[in-house]
């Protein structure tokens, strides 16, 4: 069975995302795009994940609890879980490593915490788009220990991509996959960056506005529940394809 997955979507909580990235609208757009699985991945925060899960209830769309974490090296890394509980446990572990700098909404963008209807609950006062003190390998260890899956994001991108920052992909990262941007094909990425064959390559929209949702996805072939474990297995076994529209 083919599962259409977009595993990198921001909400209005991310300062760089549009205010239209509200739970009911994200779900509506994901369904229009015939997606089966999405992950909500705001920068360094889990605060809007439950709202999107609630908005997707009874729609057939599966929502994962995720976060795009910025490591000490400034590498953006997707941390993906089946449940909000696991994600919150990660947030608790990382809390001490996050700097407490105030956001400047006028310059950097608003950070809205909202409910399942998209109504305003609070402003996140702390700037989210910053590096934490946690090193990449430590983060991945924590994610794996909590039963999640880590995927370094847009590794080829100049801003916060693993390749520009770290020069090459470490050969032994305990992750099933690396995300590449829509600007490069999988074969090009493998050849240019000498990516070891044991890493799968995924693609996602990294949507910051509604129209972007689903414009770059990974199709996964597996049966059973749309769980992190099943997706990780499909990635490891090469049962996937990248799609861009």
């Amino acid at each position, binding site marked *: 069975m083919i599962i259409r997955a977009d595993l990198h979507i921001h909400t209005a909580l991310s300062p760089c995302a549009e205010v239209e990235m509200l739970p009911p609208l994200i779900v509506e757009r994901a369904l229009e795009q015939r997606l089966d699985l999405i992950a909500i991945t705001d920068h360094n925060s889990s605060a809007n994940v439950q709202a999107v899960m609630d908005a997707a209830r009874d729609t057939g769309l599966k929502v994962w609890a995720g976060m795009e974490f910025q490591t000490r090296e400034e590498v953006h890394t997707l941390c993906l879980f089946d449940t909000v509980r696991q994600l919150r446990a990660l947030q608790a572990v990382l809390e001490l490593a996050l700097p407490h700098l105030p956001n400047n909404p006028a310059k950097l963008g608003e950070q809205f915490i909202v409910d399942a209807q998209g109504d305003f609950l609070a402003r996140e006062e702390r700037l989210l788009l910053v590096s934490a003190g946690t*090193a990449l390998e430590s983060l991945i260890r924590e994610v794996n220990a909590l039963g999640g899956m880590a995927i370094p994001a847009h590794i080829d991108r100049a801003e916060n991509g693993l*390749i520009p*920052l770290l*020069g090459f992909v*470490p050969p032994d990262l305990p992750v099933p996959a690396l995300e590449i941007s829509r600007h490069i094909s999988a074969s090009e990425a493998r050849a240019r960056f000498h990516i070891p064959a044991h890493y799968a390559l995924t693609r996602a929209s990294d949507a910051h506005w509604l129209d972007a949702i689903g414009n770059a996805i990974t199709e996964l072939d597996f049966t059973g529940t749309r769980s992190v474990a099943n997706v990780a297995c499909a990635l490891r076994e090469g049962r996937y394809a990248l799609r861009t529209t």
Partner: protein
Amino acid sequence: MIVREVVEKLGLQVVAGSAALNREITGGYAADLLSCVMARAKPGNVWVTLQAHPNVIAVAVLLELAAVIVTENAPIAAEVAAKAEAEKLVVLATPCTTFAIVTELARLGVAAQE
């Protein structure tokens, strides 16, 4: 100028590679993007950076750099230090900023190599 002189004059902490302190320095390079370092740093250069990821060691060894100076007390993991030690790569630590270290290196006559 050899690495040992830089260590002494700048008061740097030797984290790894003390066996290679007599290595001659050919010039300097400063950046935190390892892709830039791979493209621009030259053999025998001293590299000044905030990064302390294991890839730093691999890049420095690959390029045959004379030493890596990790600035602003960026934490250097034990396995990173051990890897550098095994590769006989000098890794130095300092609480100073990259800017301050580069300024001092320039004063000692360590120059950019184009």
